[in-house]
């Protein structure tokens, strides 16, 4: 299990290489399914200059750690990886990723969706969109809060 809160970009391929499969000298053979989610900065209007992501150092790691622990227990995960960036991000940049490893596909999918739903509304990040005319904090969506109810 590993959680990173960082400014730096990450390499999805590098993060997923061998993920869930143990070490070369101690391979695990009980993982049948790996699911990954990667979030990107969208710019539907073409007006976005950049996105600014603020976070609450300390609480961020703590909140994500709790969410990850719950997912590991609930879906008997073999491995979890969470990376969430903060700072200045440009359109098309990767914002964050989660990956889950489990015996079967349903567990890997559900756990990844659970992690995403909780990261959206329970990890202390705030997004601000900055364009030529000014800037605006992204408002939380009711549907994101509602998404937590299914878990």
């Amino acid at each position, binding site marked *: 299990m590993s959680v990173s809160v960082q400014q730096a970009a990450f390499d999805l391929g590098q993060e997923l290489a061998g993920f869930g499969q143990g070490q070369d000298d101690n391979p695990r053979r009980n993982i049948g399914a790996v699911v990954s989610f990667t979030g990107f900065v969208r710019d539907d209007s073409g007006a976005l200059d950049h996105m600014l992501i603020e976070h609450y150092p*300390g609480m961020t790691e*703590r909140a994500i750690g709790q969410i990850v622990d719950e997912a590991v227990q609930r879906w008997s995960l073999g491995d979890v990886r969470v990376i969430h960036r903060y700072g200045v991000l440009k359109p098309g940049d990767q914002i964050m990723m989660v990956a889950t490893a489990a015996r079967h596909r349903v567990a890997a999918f559900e756990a990844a969706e659970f992690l995403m739903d909780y*990261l959206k*509304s329970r990890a202390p990040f705030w997004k601000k969109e900055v364009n030529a005319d000014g800037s605006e904090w992204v408002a939380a969506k009711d549907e994101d809060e509602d998404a937590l109810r299914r878990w």
Partner: protein
Amino acid sequence: MIDVMYFAWVRERIGVPKEQIETSATTVADLVEELRAREPRYEAAFADLSALRVALDQDLSEFNAPLAGVSEVAFFPPMTGG
């Protein structure tokens, strides 16, 4: 003395990310009332509590929670991670 932190537009309205406050408030709501009475910038930040969230010592909490034993209070809008 208690550390009070502000994030996102709450931080922008109040003008500082963090401050130490001498308070005898017993709940978060009491602390908010004290701050609102101080200056218009606090009044502006705390005008609508339903638009705010609070964390006590880095755990999400409620406005009616007691402050006893708490060393860090943070106010911020609903999170928008992911």
